[in-house]
């Protein structure tokens, strides 16, 4: 197959998969097989494309001209390649996990769940490979809509309320700000193509650049920049596999990925550096970064704590982009991959704990680590990677981000990165410490129905399909530490 038909396949495979899932809905085993096969084929396709890109290829395909001058174009560049690799690779692992989790919990409407999941992945691929801002925007909106049923999955009042906030904020910011920014860009520059070095130089009055940047940054609600971050904690009412893949990887990373695309290919980092148009963004991102970390410390609900941690980590990337230096941008791009691996591990562990012990609050999890050692070990590795300790992948992205800050001479930004890492330690490590060292929570009265089951001191891990995936991603954190150079080599062209 030619690279451009492979490119088309990344979009079509998950879509065809979703149709097949709908058709096989009555037979769960077959349905899950379809999900896994589709995920596998998608990963192979993306891998083949990666080989082509590493060999210097730049596949592109025009889907259709929506209106005069507004084509839907797919075109690969390194940043999108990385994002697609991360999303498609983790989809396989997450699909295994979904099966374990959804069956372990006896969730309803599983067919709808897998259909929407596949459509969400298709739109993620569309975002990753979008060749212009118009295409990206369209897939961005489809991603929001296709994940809405996943967030509202349980159908309870809580789920509906959370999903309303989710939809309201994401649609509201994207139509209210992002679309304006895109149309403004279109009118000013006459094009929306992602072009190395940006398309806005000499096209827009430099004093207006910060305003346009603000429309983009707040319009990309998925990057969860304060004050438009509330949707992410609200989305935690979703089943954990959704939180894991979509709200730690696909959706939120689509947000920061879009931020990077806009900064690199619409504005151009040189233009931002010369005009200082992104100075204000440094302050906003730094504020989000620190305050979200602080809020995370106050949360007792494990998924809520992880959600705020995600908000904070996303701002690392936005901050890296705002610095408008090569290292900042590289670090931000790398952080998409490293944080994805780390955070999906944490979420999958949280889900495993829920399946095995039905616990959601951290204060109830005392001593649980001794019963679920694999889960907790994976959690520890994921946490350490996010904190940024070697030999785990997270250290590299933080390293580059800090280098970016040093480049601009803004020592305060370096300090903020470091302080935040300490805060990460403060809100992640106690979870593990409680699990291993606090006396077991056996005194907590069990529900009446469970009284028959004797409290054993033995292992009480979640089903294999819930435990294996986080262990794999935790392993991934270690492996990526040694292969970070290859990733940087892939990314290098975006700043040259």
């Amino acid at each position, binding site marked *: 197959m030619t690279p451009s038909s492979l490119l088309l396949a990344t979009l079509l495979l998950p879509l065809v998969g979703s149709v097949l899932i709908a058709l096989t809905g009555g037979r769960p085993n077959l349905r899950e097989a379809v999900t896994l096969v589709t995920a596998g084929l998608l990963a192979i396709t993306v891998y083949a494309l990666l080989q082509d890109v590493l060999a210097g290829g730049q596949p592109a395909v025009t889907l*259709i*001209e*929506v*209106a*005069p001058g*507004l084509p839907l174009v797919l075109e690969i560049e390194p940043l999108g390649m990385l994002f697609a690799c991360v999303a498609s690779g983790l989809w396989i692992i997450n699909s295994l996990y979904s099966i374990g989790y959804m069956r372990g919990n006896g969730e309803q409407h599983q067919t709808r769940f897998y259909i929407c999941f596949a459509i969400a992945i298709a739109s993620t691929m569309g975002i990753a490979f979008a060749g212009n801002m118009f295409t990206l*925007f*369209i897939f961005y*909106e*489809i991603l929001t*809509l296709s994940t809405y049923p996943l967030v*509202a999955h349980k*159908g309870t009042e809580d789920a*509906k309320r959370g999903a*309303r906030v989710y*939809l*309201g904020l994401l*649609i*509201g910011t994207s*139509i*209210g700000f992002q*679309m*304006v920014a895109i*149309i*403004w860009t*279109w*009118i000013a520059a006459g094009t929306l193509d992602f072009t190395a070095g940006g398309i806005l130089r000499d096209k827009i009055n430099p004093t207006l650049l910060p305003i346009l940047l603000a429309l983009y940054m707040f319009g990309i609600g998925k990057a969860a920049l304060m004050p438009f971050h509330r949707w992410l904690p609200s989305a935690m009412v979703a089943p954990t596999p959704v939180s894991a893949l979509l709200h730690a990887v696909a959706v939120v990373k689509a947000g920061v990925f879009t931020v990077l695309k806009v900064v690199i290919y619409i504005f151009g980092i040189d233009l931002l550096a010369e005009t200082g148009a992104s100075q204000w963004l440094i302050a906003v991102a730094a504020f989000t970064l620190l305050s979200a970390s602080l809020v995370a410390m106050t949360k007792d609900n494990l998924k809520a704590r992880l959600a705020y941690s995600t908000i904070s980590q996303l701002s690392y990337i936005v901050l890296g982009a705002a610095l408008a230096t090569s290292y900042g941008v590289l670090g931000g791009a790398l952080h998409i991959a490293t944080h994805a691996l780390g955070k999906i591990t944490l979420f999958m562990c949280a889900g495993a704990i829920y399946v095995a012990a039905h616990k959601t609050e951290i204060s109830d999890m005392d001593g649980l680590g001794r019963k679920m050692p694999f889960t907790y070990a994976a959690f520890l590795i994921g946490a350490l990677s996010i904190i940024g300790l070697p030999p785990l992948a997270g250290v590299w992205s933080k390293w580059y981000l800090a280098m970016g800050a040093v480049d601009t001479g803004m020592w305060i930004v370096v300090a903020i990165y470091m302080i935040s890492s300490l805060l990460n330690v403060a809100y992640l490590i106690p979870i593990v410490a409680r699990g291993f060292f606090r006396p077991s929570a056996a005194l907590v009265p069990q529900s009446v129905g469970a009284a028959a089951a004797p409290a054993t001191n033995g292992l009480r891990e979640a089903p294999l399909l819930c435990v294996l995936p986080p262990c794999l991603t935790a392993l991934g954190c270690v492996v990526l530490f040694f292969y970070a150079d290859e990733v940087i080599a892939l990314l290098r062209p975006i700043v040259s």
Partner: protein
Amino acid sequence: MTGSALSGIMPHLPALQVVVPLLSAPICFLLRRGLVSWAFATVISWAAFATALLLLQAVLTDGTIRYEIGGWAAPWGIEYVIDATNAIVLVIVAGIGAVVMPYARRSVAAEVPANQHSLYYTAYLLCLAGLLGVSITGDAFNVFVFLEITSLSSYILISAGAGMDRRALTAAYNYLVLGTVGATFFVIGVGLLYMVTGTLNIIDLSARVPALQDNRTIHVAFAFIVVGMGLKLALFPLHTWLPNAYTYAPSTSTAFLAATATKVSVYVLMRFLFVVFAPTYGFMALTLNYVLLPLALIAMVAATIAAIYQYNLKRLLAFSSVAQLGYMVLGIAYGSVQGLTATLLHLFNHALMKGALFLAVGCIMLRVGDVTMLGVRGLGRQMPWTMAAFVVGGLSLIGVPLTVGFISKWYLVTAALSDGRWPIAAVILASSLLAVIYVWKVVEAAYFKEPPAGRVVREAPLSMLVPTWILVLANVGFGINAEFTVDVAQTAAMGLLGIVP
């Protein structure tokens, strides 16, 4: 053989476009039997649609068509003039008619008393002929004549709902009074124009009015025409007849009228504003900027907010229509090529959205008999295809990418921004975000609420689902590939403003 017959007919297509449905109306009445009348009306609608498509194709390849009725030359006789602008309006009107008719059989059978069926289809054919006539004619007085045919027949189409709900009669009566006031205002305006120019032919008018632009009579004529058409197209605050009329009419009438009647009035307003008069006149700029623009903006926001608080789905969509007409008038008020392009695009796109939505609501009416928020509860499971159609139509109304609504919003905002009108762009986006609320109210009720205990309903019949889904797919199709519609709208807008491409 057929080829030569067709080529013999071809030159007379403009006349046939109107004459065929008009003459079919009495025949339809004579047919007496409901089902036969329906079959006849359906065939005639399809023929009208085919004619409209042929005309559009002819206009796009050969330019404006002028046709003298009865062979009487223009200033004395009546002339039909078809350019890109009204060709697209003809396609909208005839196309919606062609889609709605197959749907009508089951829906009308359920909502209109059996002894009135052939009368109903007769009124429908008259209404279709009237709407096509208003769009096609190049004669100002002829516009009025067809306008009256349309109005009188649509009062019947609305009051046919009286079998379900007696309030249809007051709704139709209200519409009758206000519609007549509107048409009278319009004809007074036309009369005044005739007084000073001595012609009723629109092309001649456009040649003679510029010399008289400071004439007080012309100003008065202008005011009467704008207010009269404002009433007919339900421009805020002259919209009060619309919500009740749409709510209590039979579903088929609502779908047909909502997608066509107001659109035709918007077209007439555009034709007079930009062809007979011109945006360069002082009084015109004043009207556009200080009358139409603010009213359009108020309509967009106020009617959307009103829609949020509606309990009846038809009423909700009716208020949304008032808001959407605001978008169309907004494009007119810009007075620029981009603005008119946006208006014409939205004219087409909104017909697709509202057509699809009202047809979906008609399906609910048939099966549940209750189109309130209570009635739609749990329908996501019980009538999956109908509700899916409603959701896609709703997304299009909001303006989500890959639907026609997005294309409309994109061009409206582009038109606002390229003139540097930032606050207006903000209002457009704010009102489309408010639309999310009323659409989502329905979505949540249908998908996340349990149906009322004990209610068992089946999915709507195929004869209704297929037309609904044709419009739904058109929403997506023209949303993904809008090149054709944008091209036609752009050509038409430039034609209206007299700009040679």
